[in-house]
């Protein structure tokens, strides 16, 4: 292979005129992080609500939650991004559609909202599984001391369910970061998009994707370490992981 390595490429000006390639990389990293963080916050909030709804004693509420999860989990993320970005503005009244189309950073909003909904369905699934893995008597014990249903969730069920699902949530969090790259299909200039742009302008494909890979790995490591720290922090003395809890 006759490849011309050139790591100094990062200090050359990018043809977009917004600084060096390195600068564009950091911008890309910024978009990746903000898209992922916003999508993840949205997914946690929505996913918790939907996950809880799916475990309530009301069959029609459960069905509604199930339908939500099926919808957002089974339609491919890339299709969802296209729907939000290209289709939604055509469906709403014309004035609203025009406003949506010329929103500054429209691809960013659409990317994190689409990713947020998509991930929320996956979080909802984990939250449901977490709640259902608790002994049935826990809900009864909360109810029996006079807690209302929301109080039973807030004080009894969710604190335990979340502890149990920290590991699967960690991987959902990492998936969110990786999935944010799909944003490039609607024009979001995130990390992968920047690597591609650099490859196209400078032909330094290996440098570009090595840098992107390193950045993704760093984010992933940060997430894993943070979640491990969290897991240790909320660990309960004397409690052995649910499922094989001994009594």
């Amino acid at each position: 292979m006759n490849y011309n390595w050139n790591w100094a490429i990062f200090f050359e000006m990018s043809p977009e005129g917004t600084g060096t390639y390195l600068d564009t990389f950091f911008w890309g990293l910024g978009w990746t992080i903000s898209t992922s963080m916003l999508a993840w916050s949205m997914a946690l909030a929505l996913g918790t609500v939907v996950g809880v709804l799916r475990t309530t004693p009301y069959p029609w509420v459960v069905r509604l939650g199930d339908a939500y999860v099926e919808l957002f989990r089974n339609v491919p993320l890339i299709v969802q991004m296209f729907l939000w970005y290209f289709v939604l503005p055509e469906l709403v009244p014309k004035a609203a559609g025009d406003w949506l189309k010329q929103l500054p950073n429209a691809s960013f909003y659409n990317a994190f909202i689409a990713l947020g909904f998509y991930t929320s369905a996956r979080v909802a699934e984990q939250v449901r599984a977490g709640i259902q893995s608790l002994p049935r008597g826990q809900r009864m014990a909360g109810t029996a001391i006079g807690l209302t249903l929301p109080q039973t969730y807030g004080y009894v069920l969710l604190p335990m369910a979340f502890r149990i699902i920290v590991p699967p949530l960690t991987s959902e969090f990492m998936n969110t970061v990786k999935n944010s790259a799909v944003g490039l299909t609607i024009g979001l200039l995130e990390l992968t998009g920047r690597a591609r742009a650099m490859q196209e302008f400078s032909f330094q494909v290996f440098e570009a994707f090595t840098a992107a890979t390193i950045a993704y790995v760093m984010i992933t490591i940060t997430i894993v370490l943070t979640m491990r720290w969290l897991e240790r922090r909320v660990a309960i003395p004397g409690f052995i992981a649910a499922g094989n809890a001994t009594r």
Partner: protein
Amino acid sequence: MAMIEIRNVSKWYGEFNVLKDCSTTVDKGQVVVVCGPSGSGKSTLIKCVNALEPFQQGDITVNGQSLCDPATNLPKLRAHIGMVFQNFELFPHMRVLDNLNLGQTKVLKRDRATARDRSLELLKRVGLEAHAQKYPGELSGGQQQRVAIARALAMDPIAMLFDEPTSALDPEMINEVLDVMVALAKEGMTMMVVTHEMGFARQVAHRVIFMDEGSIVEDTSKEEFFGSPRSERAQQFLSKILHH
């Protein structure tokens, strides 16, 4: 005065008839022991009393309040009926003290200091004040069940329901729990206790109810039950559990 009144209660799980026209009353200060073979509906009946399980027919009143009356505030009523479960069901993520405080502060709206004083008083009563800052997982089964009883008592209940409170315990821990229950009974607490501990029944029960296949087959005084249970089923059952 009837504290708990169960009138013609029937319940179905789909096609399956778990409770068949059950009626009984527990007077204020009475201790009623419920026994019967596995699957006879004992747990289901006792869970109906504080509306943890819904039922399709009949009515239950507690302290004059009907569970079926739409005007009854169920969480409020439940707060005043203590319930102790076979598997303790302490909240594992809360310290022992917080397990006792939760209902007091969130349901009874006591301030933290009052709740804490009451909790410590009750922990002392069940002999566990030294463990107030521990988590349930750090206690033995018998200790956990005593905490669970204290948690129920912290709500100042007008009646207590026990669903096989000692059957998940190692034999050497059964007595420490029974002792607490006997003391409660002697103080005049109204109690409905599902148990196969016939020693406990002999010592403090006023009445014994024997259930089989969803029906209340016998509902007699303790003396009569241990003396001459009428149904053959109850006799068989008694001879089985008394001879091992």
